[in-house]
């Protein structure tokens, strides 16, 4: 069988979307994914001129694809997109990720907000911090990333933090939460989580993009990304097994994954999700308790809470990227130059 032609324009196709029974060329594949992302942003009220979105970019395929698509939408709709990369200090792995992100933002003509955790954690990367704390690396890593993302979004007065979670990620976490009958976790896996108690809103623009297509998009558009696995990533996790199971179902019933997510998000709302209710009395970050997890854990490990220092480092990274004074409050930073096409 010959290589197919694009169903829209007849140009050579680069992808066959099984769920749509349609082959698409590179341009129309891009259009297809842009419509998916637009849909999520529209429903979240974020597809408007001047909306400020922090795009968390790890350097992997999903967040790199996401940033490329958001950069396109920033040109079309006047969104203000701020790429944020957190260098977690995980040896060569972090170095490769960082280089990929630097190449991508340079190609897109966007200023990068770069936060290096080693600068605050007394020279430690996340693995050393986790080891000293006696906690699992992935759990500490997640906590650090959430803290830095929110601090950056607050410094910028952003409307939302966009993450690269794709359809397969969402399904894996929803099903895992369902198995544990954890309603609170399930409700978090919607395309949009509104702001709550000082925590900046979250948006997952790739919610209806399959992981395989995020990868294909990065490949056919030659987007710089790293396909390496984190050395601390758990092998054969429940999430991986759920993903493989749903991929086998998708193979037999194309469109099953998107149908599942659409029905799931239609039936639920994020209103019942309890967000942080306090501000940390040490650093001012949103917190469930009187002191946030970051200040609590850093105080235990380093003898002093490092939240205020981390927030200063993030504010400095914002200033450096944008070439302006971000001050200490919300909404001080000005708009970044929005890329070249």
């Amino acid at each position: 069988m010959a290589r197919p032609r694009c169903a829209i324009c007849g140009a050579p196709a680069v992808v066959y979307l099984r769920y749509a029974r349609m082959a698409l060329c590179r341009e129309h594949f891009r259009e297809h994914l842009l419509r998916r992302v637009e849909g999520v942003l529209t429903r979240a009220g974020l597809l408007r001129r001047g909306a400020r979105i922090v795009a968390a970019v790890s350097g992997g395929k999903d967040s790199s694809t996401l940033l490329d698509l958001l950069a396109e939408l920033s040109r079309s709709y006047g969104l203000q997109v701020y790429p944020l990369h957190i260098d977690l200090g995980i040896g060569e792995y972090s170095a490769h990720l960082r280089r990929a992100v630097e190449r991508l933002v340079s190609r897109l003509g966007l200023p990068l907000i770069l936060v290096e955790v080693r600068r605050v954690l007394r020279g430690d990367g996340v693995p050393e911090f986790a080891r000293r704390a006696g906690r699992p690396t992935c759990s500490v890593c997640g906590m650090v990333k959430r803290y830095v993302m929110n601090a950056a979004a607050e410094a910028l007065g952003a409307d939302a933090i966009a993450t690269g979670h794709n359809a397969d990620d969402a399904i894996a976490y929803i099903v895992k939460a369902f198995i544990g009958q954890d309603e609170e976790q399930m409700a978090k896996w919607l395309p949009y989580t509104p702001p709550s108690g000082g925590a900046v809103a979250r948006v997952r623009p790739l919610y209806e993009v399959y992981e395989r297509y995020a990868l294909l998009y990065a490949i056919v558009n030659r987007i710089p990304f790293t396909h390496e696995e984190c050395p601390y990533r758990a092998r054969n996790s429940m999430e991986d097994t759920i993903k493989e199971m749903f991929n086998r179902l998708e193979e037999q019933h194309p469109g099953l994954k998107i149908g599942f997510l659409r029905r799931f998000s239609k039936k639920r709302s994020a209103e019942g999700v309890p967000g942080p209710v306090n501000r940390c009395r040490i650093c001012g970050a949103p917190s469930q308790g009187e002191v946030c997890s970051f200040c609590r854990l850093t105080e235990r490990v380093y003898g002093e809470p490092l939240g205020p220092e981390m927030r200063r480092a993030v504010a400095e990274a914002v200033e450096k990227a944008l070439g302006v004074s971000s001050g200490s409050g919300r909404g001080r930073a000005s708009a970044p130059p929005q890329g070249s096409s």
Partner: protein
Amino acid sequence: MVRVVLLPEGRVVELGRRRMRVDELLRELGLSVESAVVLRGDEPLFDWEVVGEDEEVRVMRAVSGG
């Protein structure tokens, strides 16, 4: 013999059959067609394309990352 480089880990697998379709190749590796991309050089292949004898392809698993 089809030589397959599995990414991200870089492990090499040699499959005994002379020619096979991409979807058959993935099934031999225990993967669903929805969970990986097969590349000839830098070009992604469609499920029905045939990988020939003595050819080397790369299989990038979509389920990977940090």
